[in-house]
Structure formats: structure tokens, C-alpha cells
């Protein structure tokens, strides 16, 4: 009994506008925004759960350029976050404010902030009167922070802002002490951040430029290449679902893939994913004979309609002919005036024209009559199909034999065709046996004597030289088509749901393995284990032991089953013999950053850690107030202006005024 998994295809639910109670409004409650490149999570710091969780994306449809009328172009509505009901429909219009894990596109960020504030119900006039805690990337460039502060302070009038790093918030939330090696597996990056006695050692932290989005892309392309038929059905959202529900990280990758080389293991463990499909209407119970009857019926009806049309046209033509003949009679009677009037009504210019029209009509009538005659003859029933390879015997035993026979013939023709094609392909390439033989044949032809061509078989030489498909292969092709038709009619067809299944064998293990071996997709950086080893090397052995005993996993991508065991095994391999190590997972890898930031906002000293508006205007947008969970602030140095360079080009040219006499 095979196990078929069905894709659930989750649909997003649009967000409601939350209630903005007076206690929120007048209490200056801090607003906590975890601005991640995958999801944005927003909530008030006094609540337990974030109010809004949505994908950090907008869908901006392109304007139609064809409207060149005077009306101004109507902007189609922009969908943001959870307003995007069907993400696959707008897949190509999606835009995000992130470039890797840093915010660079602030127009989109402003749209997202509008969405956030309006869905929280904020109705204050002219500004958002709440301090904001915002997460930023680890070691964000100052430029990005400057624009973000500009947006918040000047655009929304926020009174105070505090920036923090999401992974460190998550660490403090999980209460594992103040010394840990944080491994944050995000959507575009994996960060390895050592924290010793509460101090973040930034210079020894490392970032691998690989994350959930690369893993999803890899698996997406892999499945599309394996199943080119289902390219449209294999969507990114379905791949996300497969990764989140059905993928694991292998404990020992080499051993795991060797297991799959065994066909029995494959049969037992392959995952069959059922794609949704539409049942074709032909299986509505009609047998082959009834279908044939239907086709004959329709053909007969068509012929009838055509015959009727021809008769009508014939009648019309004859009618017109009579009228024109009457006109001709008028002339012969000598009534020129009446004639001239009459021909005006028929739009004929003179007598010659009239003659021409009459002859045309006569020809048309002749042709029509001929066609009707042939159609009448063709209505005899078509000749019975020749018996032989198409006709299946009705006796069941003989039918089976005939079926097997036909299948064998089909395979034979296929093999012959493949061989011919392979030979032709080899003939084209240089230095192959087939090409050498072809040359030999040509030179033999050139040296052929006068009696070439007396026998019919001589001319077969040209078939073997020709580089293109010749009559033999055409004949074979036709036979193939006939055999296919015969087989299709009589062979039991595979149930269609088998044709719409994806078989996943190694793929669920292969894609997450990118974390440890980025070289599988061409990325030359060290994988997670090697990078951790590199980071360890920068510390003293005592510190290394402290760090290894508290490896903290957080971030959305860390939820792959089997990751913890794999990391423990890697640590066992890289740490000194008989030293201890421990891997700790965050309680809620996706949301702990928000919870940590919320705790931070609710603490007593929160006001000391905020950048106020005055600070912003005084120190500039890049300013960052450091705290236990933030980046370090390095003020941007002024750009060097080199004064030793030569002055501008025209400094020494004397300008004269020239008067021209015209």
C-alpha cells in the first residue's frame, strides 16, 4: 500500500485591523518590530504574542502602458504582506525591501511600515507616538541604519528608536547564560556569533551567505529539472511546504545516500507527493466504439451542413444569373434607356462588364454543381480499415498475444530508430568510427567503376552517407505512430494520478545538506561545521570549551529535524578528544527574537538604550546606542579628499572674447 502525501497548499489569511485602545494610545507603549527578511513580526510590548506575522513582501503590479488616452493612468492596488492571497499568481511582481539581510529599498519599507501602523489601528494625527524597538542585521552598514532612522524619525515622528540584533535577543530570551556560540540560520544568511561573558565578539563572528531562500531555490530547480512535465505545478510555495514538512538533515550524508542506491530501500522509503490535477473528461465511461460512433456522427453532420450551404449558394447564383440574363435581353430588344437605368442599379458600367459578370457567374455555378456531385459520391462509407496490425482479435487469449506482439514490434522500431539517430549523431562528430566509415564509403563511391547503378542495391550507399533523416526513418516514424495508436487504444491506461506524482528520494536530504556543503551549488564558502571550527580557532582553549558547551541554535532554518544530532556529531569530530560539548535549540526558533525584543522593551532601563529624536538630530542618522544586544557603533569616517591631484582642467586657460563680424 503506497503512501501518497498530499500537498496542503496553505493560503494566507488577510490581517484584521487591531484595536487601538486608549491605554495603548496614551501609555506610550513601545512597539516591537522584528524586521526579518523572511517574515516581519510586530506587536506591542505589553502583549504576549505578536499581533502581526506576515511575509515581508509586496506585490506591485505593473501599469498598463497601452492606455494613451487623456485619462491619467490608474495605479493598480499594491498588495502587502498578508493581503497577498495567492502568492503564486503574483510571483513575478514580488518585491522586498531586503538585499540579502540588509534593508536597502526604503520605499518598500515605508509601504510595509504603513501596513504595520494601519493594521495596528494607530489613528493619531501626524505621528506615531510610540518608541520602536527594531531588529537589524548583524553588523549593518551605517548607510542602511541612517535611512531607517530617517524614515522612522522624520517620516513617522517616532519619539525614540532602539536597534538590536535578533539572534542576541533570542539568546537572552532562552536564558542559557551569557556565554554562547549563537548559530542563527536565517533566510539569506547563517551567522555564527560568539558571545563571551555578555560581550559579543564581533571581529570573530562569521556569516555564511546561504540561507533558507537558497535552499528553496536549489530544491525548486532540482525538481523542475527532474520533472520537466510539471514545471508549472512545482511552485515555490509547494517547495517551501515540502522543505518544512518532509525534509531532514542526514546524520551521515555519505552513508545516507549510499543507502538509496539500493532499489529495495528506494521502494520502501520513496516519498510520493501527489500534485493536484484535473481528471480528463474522456474517462466518462465511453468505450472506444462509442467514441468512434460519435466521431462518425459529427463527420456526417459536417458533410450535411456543407452540402446545404453549397445548395444555397447555387440557388443564389442562379437567381442572379437570371436577372443579368434579363438585362441582356433588354439590350437585345433595343431598350437602351431602360437598360442604362437597370445596370446602374446593379453597379455595372457597360455592356462588356455585363457579359463578364454573366460568364463569371456561369463558371461559379458549374463549379458548385461539380462539387455537389463529388460530395454525393463521397458519401459512400469509407473503406473498412485493413486488418493486420491494427485490428485486435476479440478472443482474450489471442488478444494478449497480439498485445505483447505489438509491444515487441514497437520496442523494436524504437530501438532501430535510436540506433539510426545515434549513428547519425556520431557521423557528424569528428574522429568517431561512424565518421571514418562514412569517409570510406564516400571514397569508395568516388572510385566506383562504370557499372555502378546497374543493381538497385547500389543506391543504398547514399542512405548510409546522408546526414539527415531519410525515407527509411520516415517510414519507421510512421509505423511507430500507428503502433502507438493501436497500443493506446487497447492497452489498459495507467491511472492518471500516477502521472501527477513526484517521487522524492534523496532530494529531501540533499537540499538541506547545502548548509554543510555549499559547494553543491557552486558556493565556495566553508559549510557550517567548517566555519564553526574556524571561529573556534580564534579563541583560547578555555574560551573554546565555554563556547562549545553552549552552542545555541536559532532562526527559522534551524527547525530541520536532525540538525541538532548532526551538529553534535560534527562537534565531536572537531573538538579535542574527550572534551564536552552541548547543542541547545531555541524554544521557538522563529518567534524567540520577537519575544526577546519584547522583554528588552519591557525592562526598566529601556529608556537608556533608545535613540531619542534629539540624539538623531544631533548625531545624525547613523548613530546607534549600544546595549547588550546591539551592534557596535563605528562612526563613518569622512571620505578622503585628495588635494594633491591636479586642479580642474580649464583652470589655466585664458578666456578671450572673440568678436565676429557678420
Amino acid at each position, binding site marked *: 500500500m503506497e503512501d501518497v502525501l498530499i500537498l496542503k497548499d496553505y493560503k494566507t489569511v488577510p490581517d484584521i485591523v487591531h484595536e487601538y485602545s486608549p491605554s495603548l494610545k496614551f501609555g506610550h507603549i513601545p512597539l516591537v518590530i522584528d524586521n526579518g527578511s523572511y517574515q516581519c513580526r510586530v506587536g506591542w510590548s505589553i502583549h504576549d504574542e505578536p499581533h502581526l506575522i506576515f511575509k515581508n513582501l509586496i506585490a506591485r503590479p505593473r501599469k498598463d502602458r497601452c492606455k494613451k488616452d487623456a485619462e491619467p493612468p490608474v495605479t493598480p492596488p499594491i498588495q502587502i504582506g498578508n493581503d497577498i492571497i495567492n502568492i503564486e499568481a503574483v510571483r513575478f511582481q514580488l518585491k522586498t525591501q531586503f538585499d540579502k539581510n540588509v534593508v536597502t529599498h526604503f520605499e518598500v519599507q515605508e509601504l510595509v511600515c504603513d501596513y504595520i501602523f494601519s493594521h495596528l489601528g494607530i489613528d493619531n494625527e501626524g505621528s506615531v507616538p510610540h518608541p520602536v524597538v527594531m531588529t537589524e542585521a548583524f553588523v549593518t552598514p551605517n548607510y542602511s541604519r541612517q535611512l531607517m532612522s530617517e524614515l522612522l524619525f522624520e517620516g*513617522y515622528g517616532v519619539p525614540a528608536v532602539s536597534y538590536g540584533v535578533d539572534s542576541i535577543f533570542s539568546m537572552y530570551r532562552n536564558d542559557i547564560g551569557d556565554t554562547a556560540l549563537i548559530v542563527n540560520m536565517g533566510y539569506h544568511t547563517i551567522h555564527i556569533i560568539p558571545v563571551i561573558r555578555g560581550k559579543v565578539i564581533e571581529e570573530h563572528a562569521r556569516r555564511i551567505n546561504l540561507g533558507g531562500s537558497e535552499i528553496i531555490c536549489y530544491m525548486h530547480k532540482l525538481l523542475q529539472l527532474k520533472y520537466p512535465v510539471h514545471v508549472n505545478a512545482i511552485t515555490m510555495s509547494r517547495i517551501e511546504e515540502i522543505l518544512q514538512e518532509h525534509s531532514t538533515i542526514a546524520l551521515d550524508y555519505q552513508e545516507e*545516500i549510499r543507502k538509496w542506491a539500493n532499489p529495495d530501500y528506494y521502494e520502501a522509503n520513496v516519498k510520493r507527493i501527489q500534485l493536484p490535477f484535473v481528471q480528463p473528461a474522456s474517462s466518462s465511461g465511453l468505450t472506444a466504439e462509442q467514441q468512434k460512433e460519435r466521431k462518425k456522427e459529427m463527420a456526417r453532420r459536417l458533410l450535411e451542413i456543407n452540402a446545404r450551404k453549397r445548395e444555397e449558394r447555387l440557388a443564389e447564383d442562379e437567381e442572379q444569373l437570371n436577372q443579368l440574363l434579363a438585362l441582356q435581353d433588354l439590350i437585345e430588344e433595343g431598350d437602351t434607356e431602360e437598360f442604362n437605368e437597370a445596370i446602374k442599379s446593379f453597379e455595372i458600367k457597360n455592356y462588356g462588364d455585363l457579359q463578364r459578370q454573366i460568364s463569371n457567374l456561369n463558371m461559379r455555378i458549374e463549379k458548385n454543381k461539380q462539387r455537389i456531385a463529388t460530395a454525393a459520391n463521397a458519401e459512400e462509407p469509407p473503406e473498412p480499415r485493413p486488418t493486420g496490425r491494427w485490428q485486435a482479435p476479440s478472443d482474450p487469449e489471442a488478444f494478449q498475444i497480439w498485445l505483447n506482439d505489438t509491444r515487441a514490434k514497437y520496442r523494436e522500431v524504437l530501438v532501430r530508430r535510436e540506433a539510426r539517430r545515434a549513428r547519425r549523431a556520431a557521423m557528424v562528430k569528428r574522429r568517431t568510427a561512424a565518421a571514418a566509415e562514412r569517409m570510406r564509403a564516400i571514397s569508395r563511391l568516388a572510385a566506383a567503376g562504370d557499372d555502378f547503378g546497374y543493381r538497385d542495391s547500389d543506391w543504398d550507399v547514399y542512405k548510409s552517407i546522408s546526414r539527415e533523416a531519410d525515407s527509411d526513418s520516415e517510414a519507421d516514424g510512421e509505423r511507430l505512430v500507428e503502433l502507438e495508436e493501436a497500443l493506446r487504444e487497447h492497452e489498459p491506461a495507467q491511472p492518471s494520478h500516477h502521472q501527477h506524482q513526484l517521487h522524492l528520494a534523496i532530494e529531501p536530504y*540533499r537540499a538541506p545538506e547545502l548548509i554543510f556543503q555549499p559547494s553543491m551549488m557552486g558556493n565556495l564558502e566553508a559549510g557550517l561545521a567548517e566555519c564553526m571550527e574556524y571561529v573556534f580557532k580564534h579563541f583560547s582553549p578555555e574560551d573554546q570549551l565555554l563556547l562549545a558547551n553552549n552552542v545555541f541554535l536559532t532562526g527559522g532554518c534551524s527547525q530541520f529535524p536532525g540538525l541538532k544530532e548532526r551538529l553534535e556529531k560534527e562537534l565531536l569530530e572537531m573538538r579535542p578528544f574527550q572534551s564536552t560539548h552541548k547543542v541547545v535549540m531555541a524554544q521557538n526558533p522563529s518567534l524567540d527574537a520577537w519575544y526577546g525584543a519584547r522583554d528588552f522593551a519591557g525592562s526598566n532601563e529601556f529608556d537608556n538604550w533608545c535613540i531619542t529624536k534629539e540624539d538623531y538630530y544631533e548625531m545624525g542618522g547613523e548613530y546607534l546606542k549600544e546595549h547588550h544586544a546591539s551592534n557596535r557603533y563605528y562612526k563613518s569616517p569622512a571620505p578622503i579628499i585628495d588635494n594633491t591631484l591636479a586642479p580642474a582642467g580649464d583652470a589655466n586657460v585664458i578666456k578671450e572674447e572673440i568678436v565676429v563680424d557678420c
Partner: protein
Amino acid sequence: MTGEPEKLHCFKVENKFIVKSGCKKRMWRSLKQILATDRALPWPNDAVLYYSINAPPTFKPTKKYSDISGLPAPYVDRHSKLYYSNADEFATVRSLPMDITAGYLQLRGATTIVG
């Protein structure tokens, strides 16, 4: 939600970065450009910047896996440069159309502009 940009939210006085449709779009600098300008500035020696914490390149030799099945791949197809692991896979590799071959090579990062 906003229909036209003219209709603003009550908590905003004016759009900071959002432009009206049809007006000149501001070109936002990409991360690469931001990092390039950062690199040119005279930072003090102890400053830690975005590109300073890039992961090191790998020192271990890369393991080769078959492009079509993922099994360990000791062999390479001479014509298409795809990795394969046994004779059946070889037959499949030879029969693949060109666009799928190119897709597999691109997935592995083995496409170069030359040739």
C-alpha cells in the same frame, strides 16, 4: 489600504520615500554598492564591517555528487560535464536534452561565460 498615494494615513504628514506614480523614481543603492563605498572610506583598524565577517573559503576538497540522482559520483560525462554514478545514469545523462543539461550545470555553479 492605500488606493492612490494621495490618500495618506492619518499618522503620516507626508510620504517620505514613497513616490507618486509617474514621478521620477529614486534609485536605491544595492547592498553591493553600499559595501563598495564603505570599503573606500578610511576606517580605523579595529572597526568591524559587513564584509569583514564573511565566511572563509572552504579548505576541504569538494565531494562530487551525481547531478541527476545525488548519489556519490566518481565519473564525469565528457560531452556535457555532468557527474553520474553508474551505467544506467550514464544512459540517462546522454539522452537529456540540452536545456536540462544546462540547467543541471547551472544548479551546480559550473557554467562559465567562456564556451
